[in-house]
């Protein structure tokens, strides 16, 4: 057994899993507070990556400025999507809400391919991100370490925001019960807009990070699909569950790759294993590890 490779893959799994966790958190945030399933989460990610990249490469802005501009842009974009596309569908059946975000994802995908091109593009090497550091005998690229730190930072900010700020409390109240929240003077409209803004913003950050780690391309949108196994494993309405689910899926992917490469030789198990897990979880524990079980009253 190739222990070194296994360890290396496990570390990769944790780092990628943390990023999945961040994106899954954004997904859960929208679902929890507005009951919308966002199939376009992956496109949000790609959009963030592209905007930041073209600001750096084409406009020649310094990275930090481009990054801040990307954050502002993504927040405004999230609010606009919520206002224009999702507000008219409040109260419509779930199939309509699912389909509208799927329509949005197709639209964004082809529009971005048109504007930014089909090829993967790399960020200029700003952080020396390709240099390799050795931790405990394992080789890890600096970019991966940076992504890990940033993921942890985002999670900490999320925790702080929901636990200690007024808006966070308002969002938790809205997620719990919209009518009660409204009668207590919380603006549900504002809360919805904020949920989308935060979610788009953080997805944008994840997109930039993934762009630095690998490259920006439309294939990053596949993270938006990987998020589904993660949130189902963790439970659709649990932020903690999203992080744990993301970690599990990230590690599982890499374990699948290890098993595949060393023993099974099936090929491509890496991409498909999370979906088998997804089906199994749905069969035995549909509300995931941390999700609230729906109790239906007649």
């Amino acid at each position, binding site marked *: 057994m190739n222990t070194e490779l296994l360890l290396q893959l496990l570390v990769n799994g944790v780092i990628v899993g943390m990023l999945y966790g961040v994106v899954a958190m954004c997904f859960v945030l929208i679902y929890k507070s507005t009951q919308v399933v966002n199939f376009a989460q992956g496109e949000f990610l790609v959009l963030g990556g592209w905007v930041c990249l073209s600001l750096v490469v084409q406009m020649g802005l310094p990275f930090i400025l481009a990054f801040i501009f990307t954050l502002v842009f993504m927040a405004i974009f999230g609010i606009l999507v919520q206002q224009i596309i999702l507000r008219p569908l409040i109260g419509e059946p*779930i*199939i309509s809400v699912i389909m509208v975000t799927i329509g949005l994802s197709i639209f*964004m995908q082809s529009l971005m391919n048109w504007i930014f091109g089909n090829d993967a593009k790399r960020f200029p090497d700003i952080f020396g991100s390709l240099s390799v550091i050795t931790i405990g005998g394992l080789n890890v690229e600096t970019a991966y370490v940076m992504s890990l730190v940033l993921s942890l930072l985002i999670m900490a900010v999320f925790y702080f925001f929901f636990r200690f700020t007024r808006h966070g409390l308002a969002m938790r109240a809205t997620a719990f019960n919209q009518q009660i929240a409204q009668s207590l003077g919380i603006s549900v409209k504002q809360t919805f807009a904020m949920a989308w803004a935060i979610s788009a913003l953080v997805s944008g950050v994840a997109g930039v990070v993934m762009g630095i780690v690998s490259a920006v391309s439309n294939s990053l949108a596949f993270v938006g699909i990987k998020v589904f196994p993660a949130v189902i494993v963790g439970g*659709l309405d649990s932020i903690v569950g999203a992080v744990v689910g993301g970690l599990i899926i990230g590690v599982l992917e890499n374990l699948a790759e290890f098993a595949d490469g060393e023993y099974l030789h099936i090929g491509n198990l890496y991409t498909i294993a999370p979906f088998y897990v997804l089906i199994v979880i749905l069969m035995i524990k549909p509300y995931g590890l941390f999700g609230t079980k729906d109790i239906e009253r007649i």
Partner: protein
Amino acid sequence: MGHVPNPRPAGDFRTSYIDDASLFKTRFEGRAAVAIVVALAVAAPFLSNYMLSQMILIGIYSIAALGLNILVGITGQISLGHGAFFGFGAFASAWIVNSFGIPAIIAIPLAGVLTTAIGMIFGVPAARIKGLYLAIATLASQFILEDFFARADWFSGGVYGSLAARPSIFGFALDTDLRYFFLVLFWTVVSVVAVTNLLRSRDGRALVAVRDHYLSAEIMGVNLTKYRILSFGISSFFAGLAGALFGHYLEFVSVEGFTILLSIQFLAMIIIGGLGSVYGTILGVIFVLLLPQVMEMAATSAADLVPALASGKAYIKEMSVGAAIILFLIFEPEGLIHRWRVIRASWKLFPFAR
């Protein structure tokens, strides 16, 4: 949404339950349906090759979309894996013909039966979960099936795809588009009649009850598990049948053709046409098939004014489908068939309707 009256001609009373469950609501509707089919059959030899190929595709996609409409529009389930079932039908038919030497004309419905079995297996989660969870489960089945197509060399020829020869009846080869059109027309008519018939049967009413209020349905004695899985089975049958027709039409089945985008396209067809409506489905199929072509023509003709459009034609085609889904859901959530009903009502109620 305002209620749209669905007026019947004066003096047309239903005096028995059999009348009420008739296949066509009025005698005129029945005659019109027959007239359209006859007109299509008569006109087919005079159509250009392009028109003919479009008609064949409309027929094939209509069968598949009808299947999806049973699942989504009638039973209220969600499937994001219909494209994969469509693909399974295409591969299954080619596999049956190539491995067992069964004539393609028989293999096509057989492929539908095989796909039914697969659909019911993947529909098992539907017994326990619904709504969003089901959507995600079917999304997983899409990817698992796609992976299976690429992997199972014995079944699909793997990455090389498999050949699917045109069928023949009693030595009469359906090797031209015109001859194949009649086969597709036959199966389309059979499917439309079968689905319309299903809707007026006991099982059809049970499916509607599951959609409208599944708890009440269960209390009234409808077996939820049975009907949910049954609805997956029926919908997969039509997907498989249409897929088989598609495979034998192209004479070659390749792995790349049945992605999640195809599944989304099927959903777009039934949402744009009208959920739960048989004729709406066909309208939706025509709309979704023609929209990208119309957009391409528009982009080509506008390219003289805005040169940037010329390079973006392919993207505009894709974007138009996404935009159509969004716009229909926001402005006309009941689909094209609703528009048609409004027009018909204002015609019949003239001068009293708006």
